[in-house]
C-alpha cells in the first residue's frame, strides 16, 4: 500500500467529468438506489452533485459522502439514458480511489482489502488454494458455523456461505493451452481465438468456462488459453484501488501482447465470458493518462476484446445449425449491467437464444431485465442488505414471469440470482448463456464429429 499523496479538492473526484451533467434528471428512474429510496442524494444526479460540491469546496467529504458513493452499484444504467454522456463508471472509480486513500479504515478492513485485491485475485496459485479451502469450509459446515457464530465479519461469512458449492479439484482444472476446432464449417478458414479464463471463474464456475470453450470450438474456432492472464482488475477499479487496477492492466497487456512464444497475434480476438470483465477490458485505456505509453498499449488490447455473445452471435447466424433444446418450462434472460449498459450489447444474446428451438416452452421476457440485480462485483458482500433489497423486485418479476430457467452471462449475477432464489425458495435454475448454448449444440452435433478428447469428459 503506497503512502497517500495529498490531493487538492478538485483531484478528489473527476471534476471535469462532473461538468458533463446538466442536471436534467432523466437518469433518476433508472437508478436502482433511487428506486429503492426515493432520495435525490442516492441518484446519479445527486451523486454527481455531491462530487461537484466536493471539487468546488462546497462540501468536505465525510462518512455520509463516502456512504453515498459506496451505495452506488456502478451498474451504469444511468449512462445508458444520459443524453449528456455522463460516464458514471469512470467517475466512481476516481471518487472511490481517493476515498480509500484518504479515509481512515479499520485495520481489519485494510487487511481484508489487501489480502483480497493484492494477494488473492492477481495470483492463480492463491486462487487455486482458496478454491480448495472454500470447498473444505463449505463441505465441513465450517462456513455455515462462521456465518452464525463468528465474532467478526459475520455478514461477509454469510455472503461466502451463499456462494455456489465449489466443485472438486479434478473438475476445477484449467482449460488446455489449445483446443482444436470441431467439425467442418462453412466459413472458409477456421479462426484462432484466445479465451480469457478469469480469476474466480475457474474456481466457482469451471463448468461455464468448459462450456464456453466447447461452444467456440464447435463453431469452428481453435481456442487458446493464456496462463499469464489472471485477473483483469475490474473489481479493483470499481472499488477504489486504481493502483492495483493499473498494475493488473499492465500484466494483462504484457500477457496478451503478441510475441513468438504465445499464440497471440495483434488481431487474435480475446473472448471473455464474464460481462464485468469484458466491459472493463474494453475500457482499459481509461486507467492511463493519454500521454502514458501504456495508454496506447491498453487501447490495442481493448480492440481485441469481444464478449462471448458478441463473438458467437454472428458465427451462429452464419452457420445456422439446427438447435433444439426441449425444456420442461419457460426460460428467460437477464441482461448483466456491464453487458447492456457497459457495452451496449443487447441483441446478440437474444439472437443466440432465438436461434435455439426450445420446443413448446417459449422464451418469456423478464420485466426490468436491464436493471441491476444487486450483485455488482463485491457489493453483495460489502452491503448484503442493500444488495438483497435491490434484487427483491427482480425476484418478484422472475416469479411473475413463470420462467424456470434464468439465463445470464456474468458470474456475479449468476451467484446473486442463485442465492436470492434459494432465499425465496423459488424453483428456478440459473445458467450462463454459454452453458445453454453448449447443451443445445451438443444435441445437434452428430456424435461422429466429436473428437476423443471431448467424449472423455
Amino acid at each position, binding site marked *: 500500500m503506497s503512502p497517500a499523496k495529498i490531493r487538492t479538492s478538485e483531484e478528489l473526484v473527476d471534476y471535469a467529468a462532473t461538468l458533463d*451533467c446538466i442536471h*436534467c434528471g432523466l437518469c433518476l428512474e433508472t437508478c436502482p438506489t433511487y428506486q429503492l429510496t426515493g432520495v435525490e442524494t442516492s441518484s446519479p444526479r445527486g451523486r454527481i452533485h455531491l462530487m461537484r460540491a466536493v471539487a468546488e469546496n462546497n462540501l468536505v467529504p465525510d462518512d455520509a459522502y463516502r456512504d453515498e458513493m459506496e451505495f452506488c452499484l456502478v451498474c451504469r444504467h444511468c449512462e445508458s439514458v444520459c443524453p449528456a454522456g455522463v460516464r458514471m463508471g469512470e467517475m466512481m472509480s476516481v471518487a472511490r480511489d481517493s476515498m480509500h486513500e484518504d479515509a481512515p479504515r479499520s485495520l481489519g478492513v485494510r487487511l481484508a482489502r489487501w489480502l483480497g485485491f493484492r494477494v488473492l485475485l492477481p495470483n492463480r496459485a492463491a486462487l487455486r488454494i482458496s478454491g480448495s479451502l472454500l470447498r473444505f469450509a463449505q463441505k465441513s459446515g465450517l462456513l455455515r458455523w462462521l456465518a452464525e457464530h463468528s465474532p467478526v465479519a459475520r455478514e461477509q461469512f454469510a455472503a461466502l456461505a451463499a456462494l455456489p458449492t465449489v466443485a472438486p479439484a479434478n473438475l476445477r482444472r484449467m482449460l488446455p493451452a489449445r483446443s482444436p476446432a470441431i467439425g467442418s464449417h462453412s466459413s472458409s478458414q477456421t479462426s484462432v481465438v484466445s479465451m480469457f479464463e478469469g480469476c474466480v471463474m475457474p474456481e466457482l464456475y469451471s463448468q461455464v468456462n468448459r462450456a464456453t470453450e466447447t461452444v467456440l470450438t464447435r463453431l469452428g474456432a481453435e481456442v487458446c488459453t493464456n496462463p499469464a492472464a489472471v485477473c483483469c482488475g475490474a473489481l479493483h477499479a470499481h472499488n477504489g484501488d486504481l493502483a492495483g487496477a493499473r498494475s493488473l492492466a499492465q500484466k494483462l497487456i504484457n500477457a496478451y501482447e503478441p510475441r513468438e512464444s504465445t499464440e497471440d497475434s495483434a488481431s487474435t480476438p480475446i473472448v471473455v465470458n464474464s460481462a464485468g470483465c469484458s466491459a472493463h477490458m474494453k475500457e482499459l485505456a481509461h486507467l492511463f493518462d493519454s500521454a502514458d505509453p501504456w495508454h496506447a498499449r491498453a487501447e490495442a488490447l481493448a480492440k481485441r476484446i469481444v464478449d462471448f455473445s458478441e463473438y458467437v452471435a454472428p458465427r451462429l447466424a452464419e452457420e445456422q445449425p439446427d438447435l433444439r433444446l426441449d425444456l420442461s418450462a419457460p426460460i428467460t434472460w437477464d441482461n448483466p449491467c456491464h453487458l447492456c449498459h457497459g457495452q451496449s450489447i443487447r441483441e446478440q444474446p437474444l439472437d443466440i437464444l432465438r436461434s435455439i428451438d426450445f420446443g413448446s416452452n417459449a422464451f418469456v421476457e423478464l420485466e426490468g431485465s436491464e436493471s441491476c440485480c444487486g450483485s455488482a462485483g463485491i457489493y453483495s458482500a460489502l452491503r448484503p442488505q442493500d444488495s438483497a433489497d435491490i434484487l427483491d423486485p427482480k425476484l418478484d418479476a422472475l416469479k411473475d414471469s413463470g420462467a424456470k430457467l434464468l439465463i445470464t452471462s456474468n458470474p456475479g449475477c449468476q451467484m446473486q440470482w442463485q442465492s436470492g432464489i434459494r432465499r425465496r425458495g423459488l424453483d428456478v435454475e440459473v445458467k450462463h448463456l454459454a452453458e445453454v448454448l453448449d447443451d443445445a449444440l451438443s444435441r445437434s452435433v452428430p456424435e461422429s464429429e466429436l473428437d476423443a478428447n471431448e467424449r472423455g469428459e
Partner: protein
Amino acid sequence: MNAKVHSELRAIVGDRGIVDSPTRIVPYESDGLAILRQRPELVLLPRTTEETAACMQVLHREGVPIVPRGAGTGLAGGATPVEGGVVIGLARMREVLELNVEDRFARVQAGLVNASLTRACEKHDLFYAPDPSSQRACTLGGNIAANSGGPHCFKYGNTTQHVLGLVIVTHDGEVLELTESDVEPLGYDLVGLFVGSEGTFGIATEIKLRLVRRPPVVETLLAIFTDLDSACETATKMIARRLEPSAIEILDKLTIQAVEDSVFAAGYPREAGAVLLTEVEGLEEEVSATSEDIRAIFSECGAIEVRTARDDAERLSLWAGRKGAFGAMGRVAPDLYVADACVPRTKLGAMVQQTVEIAKELNLRLATVFHAGDGNLHPNICYDRRDQDEVRRVLEAGRRILESCVDAGGSLSGEHGVGLEKLEQMEYQFAAEDLATMCLVRDVWDPDRRLNPGKLIPLRACMETRAAFIGKTPQDIAR
C-alpha cells in the same frame, strides 16, 4: 426547528423518510435550474397522504416554510428550497391506486412518474396524454403544480385538461378532496384553480387522471430543411390550413448535432439547418389524407427530404431524440438555460429572429427547440455557471426574451411556470391590481404564506395587497 421537532417528524416518516445530514441534503439545493441554490434545513419523504398531513400539522404548529418537490426537474426554480425551510418530497409516493379501464381513469399517488402511468395502462390500449419531454423522470404531482405541457398537448391539451380530481393537504395539515364532475362542473372549479398553482396552495398527494385510448393509426413524419425559417414557416402554414397533427416540433442545427452525438441519436441529418417532427393520429383514411396535405406543405416550403417512421421502434427513436434534446446540450456546455417563451403562432418566425439577435448581442450560444404547434419556443442558452459574467448575460437574455414575448402579445411561460425565475417579469406582464388579486386568492389557501414562499407572485405585490387590507404600509408588514 429544534431536535425535538426533528424526532417528532422522524417518527412520522420513519428513518428512510428523512434526510437531515448536512451532506445528504446538498443535492436538494436546486431543481432543474441549477444556478439557483439554497440548502433546506430538512427534507421529508412521506409515503402516504396521512403521513404528509401529519408532517404538515407539525410544520404548521412550528411556523416552518415548506417547499413541495416532485422529481426536481422543474426549470423555473419552483422547487428551489427556502432558507430555514423544509422540502416535502413526493418521490416515495409512487403507487397506482386504481386503474379503471372501463371508465378510463387512474387514481395515483402524486409522486408517480409520468411515464410510469402510461406503462401501467398500455396493455389496455390506454395512455396518459400529456407528455413533457421530462416524462421519464417528472412526477404527476409536479405536472399538476406546473400545468405541464408536452409535444402531444397540441392535440390533447395541457395537464389541466386531464385532471379529474385531487386529494390535497392544506397548509395546516388538513386533507381535502377536490373532485371535478365528469359531466358538468358544479360550483367553483377548485381542481382547475389548483392546477398550475406551483405548490403555493397545498400539496397534491393523490390525483385522478383521465386516460386516453390509443389511436388506431399513427404516422410520424420527419421533414428536413436547410434553414430554420422554412421550418417555422411550415409550422405556421400547417396551422393556418387547419391541419390537425397531434404534435409539431422543430429542432435547430445545434440541437440536432447535440442529439446526434448522444445515446439518443435518432438519425436526424447533421448537416440539416432544422428538422420538423410531426405526428398524425386517427383512423386510417383520416391519417393518410392529413399526411398527404402535410407533405404538400413540406414541399411547398422547401423541405429537402421527408422521412416516415417505418415502425414503432423508429417512431420511438425519433421522439427519444427530441425528448433527450435538453440533456444532450450537456455536451455543448456545462449548463443550459431553457427559456420558455410563448407567442401567437404567427409570430414564431419573428420571435426566433429576435432571440437570435439577443443572443448575438450578448455573445451567447443559442440552440432552439420548439413546440411549434403551441407557439411555444425554448431558446436554450449554453453557459457555464462558474463564469459570473456569462451568468449575468444569460439572465439578461432570459429577461429580454420574455419581455419580447409579452410585447408580441404572448406569455411569460408556455409550460415551465414562473417559479423563482420569472418573478420579476410577472410585473412586466401583469398590472399591480392583477397581481394583488392573485395574492388575495393565494391568501385564501395559505394565509401564513408558508407554502413555497417567494415563488410565483412577486413578494412586493403581495405585501401591497395585504397592507391595503389591514391598513398598514408594506414597510410595516416587511418588519
